[in-house]
């Protein structure tokens, strides 16, 4: 079945691609700020505040630091956003259109690298030593969570019956087994790191290295990076829902799907607001020992369940 090119374009640009995920993402940013404010006994911003912020940034001047590599510095945000939109398109088409146009689970996992990669490259190309520190931390964080995240993905693949097709994975058992549940826990921790929020906001650490890789960004490129981060706030919970929680659902069930999403988002925000920031070596240690051990148990149980035909493992 071939889809016409203009349909791809519509899907990609409007729904479930860019425009739709941008709206959800901005809403998620608002929820984040509002919940955070309530936890801190503040009132919090109005609903449209994230939009105002973006519009303000777009109107501002773009500055170029003297030591930067201009082309890479200005292109990195674009590539990051493009990767995020493509991932949103893929996840959205699985959940809303019951079809996966561009790729399978492995493609998705690798597409989710692109936003982090863009931040690393952008930070590195700005010629600022503080950005470089942030970039190196972001890369180390990727190394840290990649190991358990890959194991969780393998667990999902085994539980779903050795399929990589995302539509089959949505229909699979997800977290409804011991191994699936453990893998869900592991993935939630990794998502916290992938979003680079507390306790893993080590690369951006505002109070320490002033948003690290973003320190030299201003105006439109910064707005693009902020948009990308808003999109990630939509994509990553959706990734968890797709792999473990049976997707957003169809028809009226979608209300339940929205509830799942908001719940996941609030969990992320709560963890973020009740924890201190780790040092990078602590984070690497944590992921490579405790989280990986948990993920190994999950994958091992899934393999055992598969070999001996025990479905609840």
């Amino acid at each position, binding site marked *: 079945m071939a889809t016409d090119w203009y349909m791809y374009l519509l899907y990609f640009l409007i729904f479930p691609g860019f425009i739709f995920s941008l709206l959800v993402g901005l809403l998620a940013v608002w929820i984040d700020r509002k919940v955070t404010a309530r936890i801190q006994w503040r009132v919090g911003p109005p609903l449209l505040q994230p939009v105002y912020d973006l519009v303000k940034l777009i109107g501002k001047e*773009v500055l170029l630091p003297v030591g930067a590599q201009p082309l890479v510095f200005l292109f990195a945000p*674009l590539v990051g956003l493009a990767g995020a*939109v493509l991932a949103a398109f893929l996840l959205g088409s699985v959940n809303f259109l019951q079809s996966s146009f561009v790729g399978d689970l492995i493609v998705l996992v690798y597409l989710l690298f692109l936003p982090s990669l863009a931040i690393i490259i952008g930070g590195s190309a700005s010629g600022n030593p503080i950005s470089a520190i942030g970039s190196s931390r972001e890369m180390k964080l*990727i190394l840290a969570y990649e190991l358990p995240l890959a194991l969780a993905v393998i667990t999902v693949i085994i539980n779903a019956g050795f399929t990589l097709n995302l539509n089959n994975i949505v229909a699979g058992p997800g977290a409804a087994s011991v191994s699936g549940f453990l893998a869900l826990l592991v993935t939630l921790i990794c998502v916290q790191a992938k979003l680079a929020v507390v306790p893993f906001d080590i690369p951006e650490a505002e109070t320490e290295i002033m948003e690290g890789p973003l320190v030299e960004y201003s105006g439109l490129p910064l707005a*693009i990076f902020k948009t990308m981060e808003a999109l990630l706030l939509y994509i990553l919970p959706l990734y968890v829902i797709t792999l473990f929680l049976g997707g957003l659902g169809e028809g009226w069930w979608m209300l339940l799907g929205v509830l799942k999403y908001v719940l996941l988002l609030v969990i992320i925000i709560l963890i973020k607001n009740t924890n201190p920031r780790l040092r990078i070596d602590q984070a690497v240690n944590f992921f490579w020992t405790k989280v990986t051990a948990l993920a190994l148990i999950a994958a091992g149980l899934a393999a*055992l369940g598969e070999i001996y035909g025990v479905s609840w493992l």
Partner: protein
Amino acid sequence: MLNQLDLIMPLAIVLPLFTGILAVIVPSRLKVIKELIVVVTLVSLLIGAVGLAIAPNQELLWGGLRSDGLAVFIFFFTVFFAAVNAIYAFGTESEAERSNEFFAYFLWTIGAAAGVIFSTNMILFLSFWGFLGLTLYLMIGLAGPSASAAAKKTMLITGGADAFLILGLAMLFLLNLPGESVDGLAALMSNAGSAMDLWSQQPVSGTYGVLAFLLLSLTAFSKAGALPLHTWVPDAGEKAKPTTAAFLPGSLDKLLGIYFLYRICTEIFSFSASSWAVIYLMAIGALTIISAVMLALVQHNIRRLLGYHAVSQVGYMVLGLATLNPIGMAGGLFHMLNNAIYKSALFLCAGNVEDAAGTGELEKLGGLGKLMPLTSISMLIAALAISGIPPLNGFVSKWLVYRGLIETGEAGGALWIIWLLAAMFGSALTLASFIKVMHSVFWSTPSTRINLEKIREVNYFRTLPVLILAGICIVFGVAYTYPLYTFIAPAVATLEEFVALNLFAAWNAAVAAALLVLAVVAGIFLYWLFDSLKDLRRVPTWVGGSVHDPERAYFPGTEFYRTIDEMPLLNKIFSLQKKGYFDVYELFSGLSLSIASYFSNSHTGVLTTYVTWALVGLIIYLFVFMGMW
């Protein structure tokens, strides 16, 4: 029945060997003649490869030379990489002092490679394989006295592996002999011809079967650069000339080593997916990926780092081949091709950087991106491709290998989880070490440790090859079904079987790439719309309000992964590695030196001692032979 096509295989071997001799004879002043010899040879070989592709399945010399689809594919790309490196060499080597020797060894390498690709007779195969080891040694040695240690190490490791090859082939020969014929010399002679056939599909059981399999696979590993005989690759990568590094450890040796391993897994031996041999190969592959890439992470010299990646990537190919299913094997072979493409691009880019900046030490470089735009863009594309970032070619072949591994998991067992995990994690580590390279060389704070004002982009002979290779990284990533169906699928399954896998539905690279490009173009449009790019204001680097002094405040790429070097268990492993504990060469050279020092005690210089030794030897010799007959 002899037709013209029959001549292609022998000519492909003989022609470069002959023109190589011409290249030595030509006076070294006549630069154009030398280049012309190389060009004519390569063009005729390319035509030959196309001719062979028309009728690939041939047999000559009573089965001594055979070609099939895979052999033609490997030969075609051997010539292709030779051509790309030749362009580069015209920009660097033609003027060099020992250019005659360089081009001669270069052409001889191609001829011997053709011999290895086409011969299925043990003696022929062995001769060409050994000759390749020799040209490898000579080519590395061309870089001058600084490379002599690396050349010697390479010679000893590949030469040692040749000894394995001889032993392995001898065992294979015994296995090939029909049951009873070992008794009589005459019977042995009459069967020797057919027993010399490499493609005999022996089982990997019995003492000889197991030993022969282990020995031959070790030979293939030493050539391709997999553990445990890999240690010559980083040394050669660092010390040899860039062209040599890109052509031999970078591309050709990968093609030949993995090609031989493929033959070992299919034609020379035959074993099922549940055999111990599969676990052995997979373990080697997984270990190669992780250990080599961890070492790459801590290197400080750009080409040495690339050398470790040249080792690490072999792990993916071995894993792919060991799956024994069509999709995994296709992935392994495709990765072999892709790796050769981006690895030679990376080595050549590193050569460009070294040439322009005068050093390959990562600490000294920095901020070259603006000054060398073509090299830096090519290197970025190749670096992303080797890290498996979609939609580039490295992603596709890794993805196929992963799919192959998952398919073996479906058949049962749990070990595949470890192999797959090693492959996926290795990919992240690869990305990390290339971020380090790109940061150190091209992006970071402009270096004050070298004179940046003198640095210019290198000449077109040197940028064209890397641009071509980077372009192929994109093309083979986006339109991956083309190389896969044309060159690789026929080697592992029938085309129908392969098309039935419907890969394009699972990774629609063309649409994904188009959408990515669209998004980036839309972003450029946005920049234009808001006039963001018009006279950008240059501002000083912001370091918290103080004045940025790039001489003192910079963050070199070599410091990127300090946290990981210093982790409790890893730092011990790294310090042991630095002392050479994991290097077979260091271990065995120590061992052989100590044995030699023991025997050197017998060297007293007294004639009677030597005569006594000789007599004792003669007596033992006689006894052995009397006993045998």
